[in-house]
């Protein structure tokens, strides 16, 4: 009598399909990931219990460093070009195509307008150095911060404003930015914070 042969089952699981799926998901997440724009100063935002996310588009971020330097970041490249046009009209500065390109690739606006053409001719690493020492002038005699925001609002009427600052920034510096915003009737804006848990009350 012949033995009944038990068939050998291989325990090898084919992972190819699984790997396909994961690669697909990975591609999706990599493409949808939005990278944070490079900022001239690192700030630690204060934490709050508010869990509303910041608006995704049409956002103007005003960054206030602990030393009082003010930096601006418009999130839409098309707006930035239009704003630069307005600046060149009002301040009678002609920008070359190369300078315009440099303006688009640099996420931060942070030098006085008179120094802008020279700034845009620099290389990116030099620009970062210059940004750290400068900032948009926002004092009462030469309030270019106001100008930039007004241009932004003229170009994009849905522009939302968010203020981002470090925990240790003294209040008078913040107040001057707030009062600039009040001057141009941008009374509603956001403060960027990090999330912390709601305590039990």
């Amino acid at each position, binding site marked *: 009598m012949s033995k009944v042969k038990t068939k050998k089952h291989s325990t090898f699981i084919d992972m190819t399909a699984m790997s396909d799926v994961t690669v697909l998901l990975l591609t999706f997440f990599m493409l949808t990931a939005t990278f944070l724009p490079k900022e001239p100063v690192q700030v630690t935002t204060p934490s709050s219990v508010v869990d509303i996310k910041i608006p995704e588009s049409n956002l103007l971020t005003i960054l206030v460093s602990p030393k009082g330097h003010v930096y601006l970041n418009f999130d839409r490249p098309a707006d930035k070009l239009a704003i630069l046009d307005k600046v060149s009209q009002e301040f009678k500065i002609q920008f070359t195509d190369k300078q315009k390109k440099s303006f688009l690739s640099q996420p931060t606006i942070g030098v006085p307008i008179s120094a802008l053409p020279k700034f845009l001719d620099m290389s990116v690493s030099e620009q970062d150095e210059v940004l750290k020492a400068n900032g948009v002038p926002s004092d009462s005699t030469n309030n270019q911060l106001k100008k930039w925001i007004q241009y932004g609002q003229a170009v994009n009427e849905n522009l939302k404003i968010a203020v981002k600052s470090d925990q*240790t920034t003294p209040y008078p510096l913040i107040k001057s930015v707030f009062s600039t915003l009040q001057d141009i009737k941008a009374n509603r804006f956001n403060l960027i914070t990090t999330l912390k848990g709601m305590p039990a009350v």
Partner: protein
Amino acid sequence: MAEVNTGDGGEAKKGKPKKHTLRVDFTPMVDMNMLLITFFMFCTTLSKPQAMDLILPTKDEVKKEDKNKVEDTKAITVILGEKNKVYYYFGKPNYTDPNSLALTNYGPQGLRKMLIERNAVLVNRMRKLRDLKAKKQISEDDFKKQSKEIKNDDAGQVVIIKPTDGATYSNLVDVLDEMQICSIGKYAIVDLTEGDKYLVQNLETGGSLSKQAASK
């Protein structure tokens, strides 16, 4: 799928090389991919910061009859001092008594405790509402609508926030945060007046300023 058959397909004959099956194990690759996916998922959702809505009053001159007066029993004035100190007084300031101004801190036992006690009516209603939501008896939209109604209720306290020049940005955000926690819907950031400076100084010096004024 993941195996490559390197045989020629025919029967294995003597002298011919053995049929090789080349199988590639994809398990480590899947592991690595999953890890990367997790990383990107966290990056996209967690990197997005939160935003606190803030509405400031206009600088335009407000006509006297348009100004709405706050009842003294409902008003709390919070002064943000330097070195993380907070001072507060209820209703109208009393310039002769240095102890009308109280000193507290940003902790849960300080400012929050005081605000919750003062605003107990709304806090209790809010608590009930949160309970309902936790038991899933009301929807998210209803919760938002009702919590807004509660915050705008006339029984609520009105908080006037006055930051001094010594306060920091995080102090301001902390106080605005307490407004959220303590269900206070009506609050305003107002500039510090000379009278408030006097009150703070009077308290810090143990009432010497008011004694001076009294002896005159």
